[in-house]
């Protein structure tokens, strides 16, 4: 049993502010953005591999997801009518600024790719748009990790070394799930393989994250967020099993696909919830900072005594 950390606080009040972002809008935006970007990657590969139904399904899925994602982001603004102010400046120090410009370029590309695939007009332009959407989609699926990690929220910031891979993996897993739902069994191979790779990346990153960040991993292990985090990992693994065993059966493949989507969404909700918990309880801010300060003083004292 780990002894209770000794620290004082100001009447137990939080030190940093809890995020004002609302669920389900912002975790929804994270999930849908990731799904869209990775779907565009899958769509490009599927098109090259001559899986037209998979490619079309992934492209339509991408544009639908990114539209909903942008709508969720705008809805969460305090002044939604001012959403275009995001394009006043370009600031590399702000992941939200970088993301706004990414989305501004990716959205039309994904839209054009889907339009061309569905209507069949301008196939060359459609191919170019598909390639552009795939390239930008890699950024769309991962910049959101920078967005949440570039904060003072302990559970998010401390996990910055793993979160981008977790988000990429979760996005790939979701896109694979969407592909399993959208494509006939004969063309579902790439979607299934992407889901496996994504799930492997997601689960590995999640394990590394929670093991490395010390006490700030507690919100990922306990409470509602912890339960959801664990449940989504289990569901992902089960869904992959069903996807492979039932790969010749439409119903099983579709069930696996839907489960993968739900699990990816649950992962984002869990990470969001864990962040809020870590901001609300002052111990997650105070105890690691005290330890860091103590270690730094000890190191400086060593240098000082070594010099004498």
């Amino acid at each position, binding site marked *: 049993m780990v002894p209770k950390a000794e620290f*004082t606080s*100001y*009447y137990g*009040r939080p*030190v*940093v*502010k809890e995020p*004002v972002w609302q669920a389900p809008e912002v975790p929804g935006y994270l999930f849908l953005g990731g799904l869209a970007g*990775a779907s565009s*990657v*899958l769509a490009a*590969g599927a098109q*090259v*591999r001559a899986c037209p139904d998979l490619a079309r399904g992934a492209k339509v899925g991408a544009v639908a997801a990114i539209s909903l994602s942008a709508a969720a982001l705008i809805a*969460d*603004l*305090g*002044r939604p009518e001012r*959403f275009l*102010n*995001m*394009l*006043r*400046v*370009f*600031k*590399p*120090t*702000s*992941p*939200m600024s970088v*993301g*706004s410009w990414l989305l501004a370029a990716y959205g039309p590309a994904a839209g054009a790719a889907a339009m061309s695939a569905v209507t069949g007009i301008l196939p060359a332009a459609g191919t170019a748009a598909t390639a552009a959407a*795939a390239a930008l989609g890699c950024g769309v*699926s*991962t*910049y959101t*990790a*920078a967005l949440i990690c*570039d*904060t*003072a929220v302990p559970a998010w910031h401390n996990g*910055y*070394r793993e979160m981008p891979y977790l988000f*990429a993996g979760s*996005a*790939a897993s979701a896109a694979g799930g969407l592909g399993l739902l959208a494509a006939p069994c*004969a*063309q579902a*191979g*790439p979607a299934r*393989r*992407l889901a496996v*790779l*994504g799930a492997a990346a997601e689960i590995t990153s999640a394990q590394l994250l929670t093991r490395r960040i010390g006490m700030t991993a507690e919100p990922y292990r306990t409470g509602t967020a912890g339960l959801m985090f664990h449940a989504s990992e289990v569901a992902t693994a089960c869904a992959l099993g069903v996807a492979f065993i039932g790969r010749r059966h439409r119903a099983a493949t579709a069930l696996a696909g839907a489960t993968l989507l739900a699990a990816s969404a649950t992962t984002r909700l869990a990470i969001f919830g864990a962040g809020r918990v870590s901001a609300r309880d002052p111990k997650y801010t*105070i105890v690691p*900072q*005290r330890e*860091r*300060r103590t270690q730094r003083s000890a190191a400086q004292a060593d240098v000082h005594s070594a010099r004498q």
Partner: protein
Amino acid sequence: MSVDAAGLTGVIRAEPAGAVDPAALAGYAEHPPRMGFFTDTSVCIGCKACEVACKEWNAVPEDGLLLTGMSYDNTQGLGASTWRHVAFIEQPGSAGEPGATGRGDAGDLRWLMSSDVCKHCTEAACLDVCPTGALIRTEFGTVVVQEDVCNGCGYCVSACPYGVIDKRRDDGRAWKCTLCYDRLGSGLEPACAKACPTDSIQFGPVDELRERAALRVTELHNAGTPQARLYGADPADGIGGAGAFFLLLDEPETYGLPPDPVVTTRDLPRIWRHVGLAAAMLAAGGVAACFGGRA
């Protein structure tokens, strides 16, 4: 479209900045000296004139009438509609200490009082993460929100290591201390500093305030108060030093302040590298999935 000079040139760095000039970094060719606060909590009497003056001058709305039981603190903390917050901490103490009631009996207590405010950090996370450019560095080196630009995305709220800035619920935008930018332009001192009866809140050029603060800490140490320390005065600290720094009589966390705040932007170059690598791996994963087996 404009490219933010501070964002590209001076703010992304992994190493501590040293004593930088934030207004110059932000692009002001000529500017007045950097202005800030030195809040000497050893002489604060907890009158809350600073809270009242700030609300009056800035027309800050009422944000809760509660009796909290947190000693005399019914304000609770800084927020979108509280830009000066007086903290009260009652501790068992001994007579003769600053803040002691001096009754000299077994029930003696030490009463710490401190007026908290936005730190106007040299490396300001709120400013760094603002995607609309609403948060700016003024020519005085202070950090200010332009309320006609802010669209209430709330990113600044999560980025501030001190939990200062917040989003006003009914209004939708982010608000915080402006260091009375409108008063500075007319050569006046901020409302809180003007109202403070004990000069606990001192306003002036930050260099001068830092010198004054160092002398005051030495004075307190010599007078038998070894716990006196400066908080936010060191340009080599995790935020590059604060424009509004403090003299505290106990650990920062006792007052609700973070013990070792570091601006999140310090880690951003590494974060972007991991994002780039993850994006590349996603692309590679897509290739492997599509070409690594039968369709």
